[in-house]
């Protein structure tokens, strides 16, 4: 059934279709309508889940950890400061190998106080052990949440699906909502290999001394390595079921490109519009959209950018003292290539500053005029 839905509600529909057993959430700012609608689904009985209202996002993730430990399919959603408060528990969820699905609506961090979109909140969770998926549309948000449960439960790692504040979260557009029968055929009931069960007592999350700790960490790294091909398989199978798949990264008009933009999230759509314009003008430009950030798809990224001369990364985030986070990851992935493109790092659109076609045209103009990037990131469209 196709409906006009905002990104937040596309996520709510996906969580209901996934038959989540537990939704734990802090209900106040910076929460979104994702869990508001889920609480209504629980109240009306259309979702048979325990909705646990908690006093903080830290507790929301703690409740999901408890629920997932007992074998439940658990979900939470948050944004900006809420995600940052959750940080300690994210490490725990990954370390305990629990397939929790979290949706984060990208919002800038204060002060100055700001509710608009920026990716720094989710990218700051880079080293927690969460798989991260960035969406370009509300349809992709719905589809990615369904894929996320399957992926999480296969590799036993939590997954964070990320969507831009307002630009997706509050924007209404047509979304194909699959039927429950179709989703049930794609996503079976969660059957954990082990669970917290008084009838079958086991020890969980014990003290692990130095002679064992590294091996457990290595298992997480291996699960992340597996997640690269499992994510691709889940996405392909999703395509067979629903006719939509996205890839780990997406190449757009990149085949013979000499110049490439790299984006993640909703600004990718605006970049596509500009790429089409440039192609009409005969400029050999293309786009690489990063969908998966962790594990980082280094191999497809370096393969797809191997023949490109210049790459402009549009980073709607900042690691102070370094630069754009996607650009740094990209440079690391390209390091072993014998022929590396020049990578330009454009920090743009922080705190919801609009990324318009003019913004993207300006970035392309800079790329056309410069052979090599300056040291450090280019802060784009900032007032003097």
């Amino acid at each position, binding site marked *: 059934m*196709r409906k*006009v839905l905002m990104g937040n509600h596309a996520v709510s529909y996906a969580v209901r279709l996934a038959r989540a057993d537990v939704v734990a959430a802090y209900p106040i700012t910076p929460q979104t309508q994702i869990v508001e609608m889920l609480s209504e689904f629980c109240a009306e009985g259309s979702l048979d889940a325990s909705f646990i209202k908690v006093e903080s996002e830290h507790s929301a993730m703690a409740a999901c950890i408890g629920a997932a430990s007992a074998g439940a399919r658990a979900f939470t959603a948050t944004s900006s400061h809420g995600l940052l408060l959750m940080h300690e528990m994210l490490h725990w969820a990954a370390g305990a190998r629990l397939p929790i699905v979290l949706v984060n609506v990208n919002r800038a961090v204060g002060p100055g106080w700001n*509710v*608009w979109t920026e990716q720094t909140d989710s990218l700051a969770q880079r080293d927690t052990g969460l798989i991260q998926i960035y969406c370009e549309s509300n349809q992709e948000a719905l589809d990615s949440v369904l894929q996320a449960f399957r992926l999480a439960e296969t590799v036993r790692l939590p997954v964070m699906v990320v969507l*831009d*504040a*307002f*630009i*997706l979260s*509050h*924007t*209404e*557009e*047509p979304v194909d909502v699959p039927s429950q029968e179709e989703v049930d055929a794609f996503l079976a009931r969660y059957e954990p290999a082990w669970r917290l069960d008084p009838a079958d007592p086991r020890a969980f999350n014990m003290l692990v001394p130095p002679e064992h700790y590294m091996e457990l960490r290595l298992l997480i790294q291996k699960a992340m390595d597996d997640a690269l091909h499992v994510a691709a398989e889940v996405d392909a199978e999703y395509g067979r079921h629903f006719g939509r798949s996205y890839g780990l990264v997406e190449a757009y008009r990149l085949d013979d490109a000499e110049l490439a933009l790299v984006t993640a999230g*909703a*600004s990718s*759509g*605006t970049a*596509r*519009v500009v790429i089409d314009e440039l192609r009409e003008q005969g400029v050999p430009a293309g786009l690489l959209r990063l969908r998966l950030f962790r594990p980082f798809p280094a191999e497809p990224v370096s393969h797809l950018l191997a023949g490109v001369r210049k790459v402009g990364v549009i980073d709607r985030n900042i690691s102070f003292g370094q630069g754009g986070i996607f650009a740094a990851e990209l440079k690391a992935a390209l390091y072993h290539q014998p022929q590396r493109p020049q990578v330009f790092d454009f920090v743009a659109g922080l705190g*919801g500053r*609009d*990324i*318009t*076609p003019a913004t993207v045209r300006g970035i392309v103009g800079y790329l056309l005029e410069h052979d090599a990037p300056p040291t450090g990131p280019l802060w784009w469209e900032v007032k003097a």
Partner: protein
Amino acid sequence: MIEIRIHGRGGQGAVIASKVLATAVFLEGRYVQSFPSFGVERRGAPVTAYTRIDDRPIRLRCQIYEPDHLIILDPTLIQAVDVTVGLKPGGWIVINSSRPAQAFALSELFRVATVDASAIAVRHRLGPVTAPIVNTAILGAFARVTGLVGIEALREAVRDVVPVKKEANVAALEEAYNEVRS
């Protein structure tokens, strides 16, 4: 692509209007995107909401700066904010007002239509008499003058999107459709 900007005050239903309009156009088989002004809203303060319409999927994901048409839910906004900023020449401005279109000293570059959506909303008991909810009524007027969407799709969209008093809202929509003056 056609872009529409809706000006209202918090509580008048500008955001719902943008969604009803988008849903109606979607029901007619076209692609749509609608969104509120990105930010924090307060009752009574100026708000804007936006709708994009196209014959193919909409990939553009930024705010609207040069709309094709405007909908003004509160005529006092015309003095308070520069409502026509960025409006393309030839664009329609559909205003909620009991006054005729000629009463508004707007540039001759634009086409102006008025409808007394407040009185219509009050007649159909939509919102309090002091702050009627005029969003559904004005869409009837907008559909009539622009021809961008049919009344039947709008009726269906109102029934789908508006949470309460669905039939009263449909009646207001139809009344404004018939009463609009340009």
